[in-house]
């Protein structure tokens, strides 16, 4: 039976050079990120090339994705959040493409590595802090001090709020990473059962029908999870950005 962890292995293709004694290599992870970016670019450039008033299939797909993200930002961060549209749209499309491409057999899923999701989450986290201070100055700190709390427990509550804020990039990144990792391992384990049971002869063939059915069902579920997690990642980004725009209410 194939090792279910093997699919997450990083393979070096070309070593590009060394920075500070560290090897910088073009890996399969980098390749699939490049494929995702190329796919998004192709979709959006191809969709906007002939700009018809009555959109074709590709154009309406691009328009739908634009409206989906624009609605998401408007409903969570308000009108002012629209200045972050390019940021949120890039994150959403990148995570969506990477997740869905990873579901195709023999493809590598970039988001099953926590370094990728943590980088994305920290990017959002620092954007919130920098924009929050730039826009609101020290008023930004007011979001750690809830109003209407008795003065003697205020220090405690403030410490808890600060820790709650600091734990955001952690849960933001772990959620996407854990969902993708768990899904891909489950899929591989159930698919492995088919081969194991099939080797038992005629009785095993009947038994193998069960994991085969499960694998088909799980693939559909994984497609749902891939799209849903891209959505969740993007909407949490919007909610966090909302705090930078409107701290302390």
């Amino acid at each position: 039976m194939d090792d279910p962890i093997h699919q997450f292995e990083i393979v070096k293709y070309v070593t590009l050079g060394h920075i500070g004694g560290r090897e910088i290599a073009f890996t399969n992870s980098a390749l699939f990120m490049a494929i995702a970016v190329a796919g998004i670019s192709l979709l959006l450039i191809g969709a906007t090339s002939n700009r018809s008033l009555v959109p074709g299939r590709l154009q309406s797909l691009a328009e739908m994705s634009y409206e989906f993200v624009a609605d998401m930002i408007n409903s969570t961060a308000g009108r002012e959040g629209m200045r972050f549209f390019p940021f949120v749209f890039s994150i959403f499309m990148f995570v969506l493409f990477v997740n869905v491409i990873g579901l195709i057999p023999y493809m590598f899923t970039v988001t099953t590595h926590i370094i990728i999701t943590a980088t994305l989450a920290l990017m959002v986290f620092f954007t919130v802090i920098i924009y929050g201070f730039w826009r609101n100055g020290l008023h930004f700190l007011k979001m750690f001090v809830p109003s209407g709390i008795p003065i003697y427990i205020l220090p405690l509550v403030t410490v808890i709020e600060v820790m709650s804020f600091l734990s955001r990039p952690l849960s933001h990144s772990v959620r996407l990473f854990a969902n993708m990792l768990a899904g891909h391992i489950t899929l591989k384990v159930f698919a492995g059962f088919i081969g194991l049971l099939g080797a038992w002869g005629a009785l095993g063939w009947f038994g193998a029908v069960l994991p085969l059915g499960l694998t088909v069902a799980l693939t559909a579920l994984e497609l749902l999870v891939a799209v849903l997690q891209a959505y969740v990642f993007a909407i949490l980004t919007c909610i966090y950005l909302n705090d930078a725009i409107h701290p302390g209410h």
Partner: protein
Amino acid sequence: MSGFARGMRLSAELVGGVVIGFIFGWLIDRLFGTSPWGLIVFLLLGFTAGVLNVMRSAGVIRPGPLSGAGGEGMHGRQDRN
């Protein structure tokens, strides 16, 4: 949202709080040599922050001054702006 995804989301919130509490407590112990008190205090505080995150994101309590990490507690978000 499927039950699995929901469970995953809420558990990530709780674990996130506890891990941040651990990191804080450990660093404070390392810097000031207060072992084990920093770890004890900040693990408890981190656990509290984790529970707060979970309750906010599950919509049990109103999204607070930190408007929480939740999807469901978002209704009426615009009229606060």
